[in-house]
């Protein structure tokens, strides 16, 4: 049998003592394994973040304007106070800005004059938080307790289809906001 032609070929890249074919594939394997595991863990955590929330809508109708009496109405299911002053409406959140308890409205028998940022204002009510004793004036400005900010004001609209009042919890507004009906 004639001697076989030499099978010796030039290696594609120079094999050094530290990097053999075996150690390279071992690294590939371990790398692949770790990537796979990281992917699996990501999947597990991702599955814990819900894609659909079956929560009450953040923009909702509350009824026709003439159903609301003069003064304040509490919309229990959405934790929001709706104020009516003749033809003007505005909505203030009942969620305390400290730790999210529902504030309670305290009605005064006689109008009370309070100083809010230098302005003198007549108030018929204030809001007290039962959890940690924060207090807010009738316009939602915090004045006592640990609350760091005023109660949120939300945009109100008139529904185009049936003329009901709409409260939009996704859109906070300033304290000068009034919906004129």
């Amino acid at each position, binding site marked *: 049998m004639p001697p076989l032609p030499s099978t010796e070929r030039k290696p594609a890249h120079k094999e050094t003592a530290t990097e053999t074919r075996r150690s390279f594939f071992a690294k590939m394997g371990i790398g692949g394994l770790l990537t796979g595991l990281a992917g699996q863990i990501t999947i597990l955590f991702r599955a*814990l*973040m*819900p894609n659909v*929330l*079956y*929560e*009450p809508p953040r923009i909702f109708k509350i009824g026709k304007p003439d159903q609301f009496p003069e003064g304040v109405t*509490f919309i*229990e*299911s959405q*934790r929001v106070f709706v104020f009516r002053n003749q033809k003007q409406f505005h909505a203030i959140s009942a969620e305390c*800005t*400290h*730790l*999210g*308890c*529902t*504030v*309670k*409205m*305290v*009605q005064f028998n006689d109008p009370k004059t309070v100083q809010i940022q230098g302005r003198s204002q007549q108030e018929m009510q204030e809001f*007290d*938080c*039962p*959890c*940690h*004793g924060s*207090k807010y004036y009738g316009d939602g400005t915090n004045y006592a*307790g*640990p*609350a*760091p*900010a005023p109660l949120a004001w939300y945009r109100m609209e008139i529904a185009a289809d049936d003329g009901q009042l709409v409260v939009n919890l996704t859109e906070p507004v300033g304290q000068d906001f009034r919906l004129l009906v």
Partner: protein
Amino acid sequence: MAVQKSVWRRLTWPWKPESELEAGDSIVRNLLLHWFPSQVSLPSLSFRYSFWLGSASAVLFLILTITGIVLMFNYVPSVERAYASVKDIDYVVSFGWFIRGLHRIGAHLMVAVVFLHGVRVFLTGGYKNGSGAGQNRPVNWIIGVVLLLLTLFLSFTGYLLPWDQLAYWAITVGTNIAKSAPIFGVQSRFLLLGGNTIAQGALLRFYVLHCFFLPMAVIFLFSWHMWRVRKDGGLACVDQLALDQKAQKSVPVKSKTYSLLGIAGRRSVHIETALVDEEMYSTHSSPHLTRRLLLTILLTLAIASTMAIVIRAPLEEPANPAVTSNPAKAPWYFLWLQELVADSTIRIRGFTVNGALVGGIIVPTILLGVLIAWPFLDNSSVRAAGIWFSPERRLQNTVFLTIVVLIVAFTIIGTFLRGPYWGFYWPWQTWPTLPKKF
């Protein structure tokens, strides 16, 4: 009768050995006892040194597991049915009121006992390494701190499950503290609740955390805790005994080793015997350790059961997101935190930091960091390890006790001196009557 007697004897001999051989065999051959050392030193058996608080908290965990399993068979983790099923447990299920009461009291006691266990370890310098080889007690201290946190978190998750007013508002406050954390606050609350509101997703998540995830974590860390106690050569008070002996005798006797005869490179779990004259200062674990352990189990169960009969587990009105109960109080072991979040809103020239961040996140994180770092900052000598109120650690103990007293004081203020709208009322002052609904 003779056969019966022998069967009984075959079952119980490890617990009452009649010879030295049986005493040693009982540890090796009994599944329940095999994790104890066969010999135990006399000081570590003392009730006065440890008050057996660690064992008592393990017993409470066992009580909670057993009562919890029975409760799981009767409880429905759904928003519509949770409240009614807990009410059924209280009023319809035979002895349900007792099992729920025992579970609740057990949880309260476990928080207290685990806390006191930590206080004991601190005041005795039990987290300090002594003279033994391979000791790493600071690691076990950190495991203990994590176990305390897990105990608190277990109580907290269990709190939501009845879905009553108390539950709902405690969870509202708790998860909003999580929300005020920097960077990941909002996301971590979303993940914890499975949404933006406390609803079905939150109830199910807390249920799974409470019944599976957290107990598993406790079992894992508890095993590690006990394994480390063995590796560290037992309680720290034993090291003092060994040091006393070293001072007495200049030439130590060659000590026994329990390593695997050179097969294993390092020391096995049971390190070299620390005591020069083991026979004189130690005794057989069975029956001396087992007897005290059984006594601890009996006492813990008796106290918890009696309290469960006397103190009924409350069930408030069903959860109502529209009406916050007034005052809305967290469970007593969180009231120091509630007092803190109520007092710690900082205002500097119109710049406001929410008390939820200061009192709910920053202060507890600092306390936790100090607690974990303490063993590494403590540079007292080995002679201060395993001694109650060592004079070397007087300053340390004073600082620690001051913090403990402050926490207890805040807890007492929150529990007994806070009324409607978190107002301050002395116990003899009557609370104003408020309309239930406006």
